[in-house]
């Protein structure tokens, strides 16, 4: 799918990267914890998140994330938008919640950048 189709599918607003809407993406990762994004997201994927601070952009840059989809209609700060512009990382904002955003993308053919993590399920304490 290209970003323009994703924008339409999610009824999203493009805050950064209007001229990159022909970019093709096949995979995505969604989380609000940047340490998990760092550990699991793959380069070239979409990042779905509800966080809006500049660290989201730094994290995306470190991983070569294709584009960021901010969910739940959150508005990033001007600092965040500026940094994304400087680093050339598109930001789309959708009012759909994370679950609905992921469901719509999956139905349209986007897949997780990994399906399951390795190892056994474990808890703390």
């Amino acid at each position: 799918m290209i970003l323009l189709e994703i924008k339409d599918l999610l009824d999203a607003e493009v805050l950064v990267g209007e001229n990159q809407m022909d970019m093709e993406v096949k995979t995505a990762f969604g989380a609000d914890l940047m340490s998990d994004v760092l550990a699991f997201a793959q380069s070239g994927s979409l990042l779905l998140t509800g966080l809006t601070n500049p660290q989201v952009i730094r994290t995306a840059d470190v991983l070569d994330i294709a584009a960021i989809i901010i969910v739940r209609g959150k508005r990033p700060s001007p600092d965040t938008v500026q940094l994304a512009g400087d680093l050339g990382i598109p930001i789309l904002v959708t009012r759909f919640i994370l679950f609905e955003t992921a469901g719509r993308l999956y139905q349209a053919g986007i897949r997780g950048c990994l399906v399951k993590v390795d190892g056994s399920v474990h808890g703390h304490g």
Partner: protein
Amino acid sequence: MADEPLIYENQFNVQGGNFNDAGKVASHIKAILKGFGIPSEAVRKTALVAYESEINIVSYARKGVIHLRLARDQVVIETIDEGLGIADIELAMQEGYSTATDKIREMGFGAGMGLANIRNFSDIFQISSEPGKGTSLKMIIKWRP
């Protein structure tokens, strides 16, 4: 390692408490490694460990330095900070253990994954710390030249 000639060497200062710039050094290191044509998986691992280390310095130290040393088949990231230090390293390495403030959590960190991520993405990982003085980390990432 000691005999291996370095291709590139540099060091970067990190200011404690400067949350706005956290990640800047990691982005810079990533760009440098890409410029040298280092394999992308090694660039990703290095940028990741540099980024988590930088977040730790910003979060828990007054100031710190990140050293970058690039050889033919490996990169060494070494960080030295002056800050809170870690009293119980074994506990701090456990996934989920954290002493993070709300400010750190708001940034999407502080869930007790940082040091574990750094260890998991490094081929060699060393940590030493003195409570009240600071923490030093050494990470080596290797690739086939």
